[in-house]
């Protein structure tokens, strides 16, 4: 594999990530450089402030950053960083190194789970009304009144909540997004 393989040794867990995530060696190197760039104090791991700096213009920036961290953890190391980003690889390219192409339904599921966790911050498996209101407030900012917010949340829950428990569980979430091309919407195109 020439030069890339040997310098992959500088990347933590490089070989394993190569197998697991399906990123090419060149991508892993670039991501490692990007990781080091974001890691301003050269600690070898990122804190939420490091990532938030890149997302200050995104309404749900803080929430997206939260998705990188395991519950209770305050830092994220490079392998975890890459594993989160691997969710955003387009499905067609998701061939792992041993040539086995994973089930497209499986990768769609993983993307959906990621999106679900963005809403469900306390990870209890349901998007409660409160959680939905929080997301809406973040995305809409001060542009709407409290009443409008409530009515939007009310309608969204009514549409999606099939078992009438006033919360949206993962299955209901998945059902309501049946017609959406998740792969297209939740993928980032990495240049070869």
């Amino acid at each position, binding site marked *: *594999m*020439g*030069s*890339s393989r*040997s*310098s992959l040794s500088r990347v933590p867990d490089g070989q394993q990530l190569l197998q697991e995530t399906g990123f090419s060696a*060149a*991508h892993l*190197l*670039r*991501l490692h450089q*990007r990781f080091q*760039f974001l890691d301003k104090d050269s600690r070898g791991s990122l804190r939420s402030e490091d990532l938030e*700096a*890149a*997302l*200050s*213009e*995104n*309404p*749900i*920036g803080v929430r*997206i950053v939260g998705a990188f961290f395991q519950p209770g953890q305050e830092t994220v190391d490079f392998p975890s960083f890459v594993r989160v*980003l691997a969710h*955003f690889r387009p499905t067609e390219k998701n061939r792992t190194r041993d040539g086995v192409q994973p089930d497209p339904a499986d990768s769609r599921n993983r993307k959906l789970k990621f*999106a679900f966790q*963005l*809403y469900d911050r306390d990870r209890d498996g349901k998007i409660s009304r409160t959680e939905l209101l929080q*997301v*809406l407030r973040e*995305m*809409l*900012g*001060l*542009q*709407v*009144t409290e009443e*409008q917010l409530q*009515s*939007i949340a*009310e*309608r*969204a829950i009514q*549409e*999606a909540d099939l078992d009438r428990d006033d919360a*949206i569980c993962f299955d209901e*979430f998945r059902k*309501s*997004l049946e*017609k*959406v091309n*998740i792969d297209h*919407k*939740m*993928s*980032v*195109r*990495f*240049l*070869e």
Partner: protein
Amino acid sequence: MENFWAGVLWATEIWLYLIVCLIMIPAMFGFSLGISETYMNILVKTLEWATLNIQKAHAEGESAKASASNGLIQREHGSMEKELGELRRSRPKPPVGGDFTLSDCFYFTRRGIESIVDDEVTQRFTSEELMSWNLLTRTHNDFQYISLKLTLVYGFGIFVRYCILAPLRITLACIGLTWLVIGTSAVGFLPNCRVKFWLSEWVHVMCYRICARGLSATIRYHNKENRPKKGGICVANHTSPIDIVILCNDGCYAMVGQVHGGLMGIVQRAMVRSCPHVWFERSEMKDRHLVTKRLTDHVNDKTKLPILIFPEGTCINNTSVMMFKKGSFEIGATIYPVAIKYDPKFGDAFWNSSKYSMVSYLLRMMTSWALVCNVWYLPAMHQEEGEDAVHFANRVKSVIAHQGGLVDLQWDGGLKRVKVKDTFKEQQQKKYSSMVVGDDSSSNSD
């Protein structure tokens, strides 16, 4: 022991004597002995040989294609309206409760991940990536051992750069600066007359020439007929403080800047004695009217030298030109645009002020191979009838970017230091809310 010190003294004398004869005197009088040319020729040939070697070795293995755009991902440039609209197509718009879908967060998430992986702005504040190695340690990214010959040349290069060139250049820089201070102060004692102007110009140019030799700078000036004239403002793209040395090698300018303490302050005070520059106290800088007035006064006096201004306000890495601040374009004087482009093969001139201090930056410059750059003087531009300053600034910016082969960006260079303001986030929220609640949004402001 005494013999040793006598020997050292003798060696230093010879060293200085050589410098004065071979470098200073030609610099003072503006002719060249051809030493730099020979050095550059050898350097170019060596680098070409090194590049060929590396390319041959890489062609056998897998070549890591360095993308010319420095980018890792291809960003989707669809607007929010287009993308969110696609998500809504699958069902009719509900009559009440806003037009929100659970998939709306996908758009923001994807944009967020794109920004984490790669963002267009900070790219410009890191040094340009080179296609192949130029035998400098600092650009040594992933290149590994190719051949013994190459490693030997690389090692020899280190010796040459650190042990021969660097001391030489530091000596020259010190001489240049000292001479600048002494010379300008001396000229300052003369009464105002034509001789004084001529002498002051000569002293300035001479010192800058010495400094340029101190960096082994090879500068090519194009279109000298468009050189800035008195009573105008010279505007250029900014890559490092060395830009000043580069431009002043070929003409005299009045500088604009803040008064500093220490060594810089001494230099500033000395320079002002021989010809008028515009130095501001820190408190004065905040008062925009005062700044504009002083600049206008200077410009209106046709005997004073053209002002040199870098409207970007900060150092950019020489692959692009960022937003020009409109202050200098409101004065109504003739603008002389100048494009400066450095050749990265011989040394990276970009000053990353968050990474390196001024001193370590200068040391890096002095241990590079050389500094090669092209300067294009562009035809004078005037503000047109009814044109506002921002539009005029953008016009000048695109002319400079076009000439220098740089990318013309709309971003503000100040983003380097300051966190992006909340207004960007607010704009996103406004746009999104107009899609969800339409014209019922509670905010009245636009």
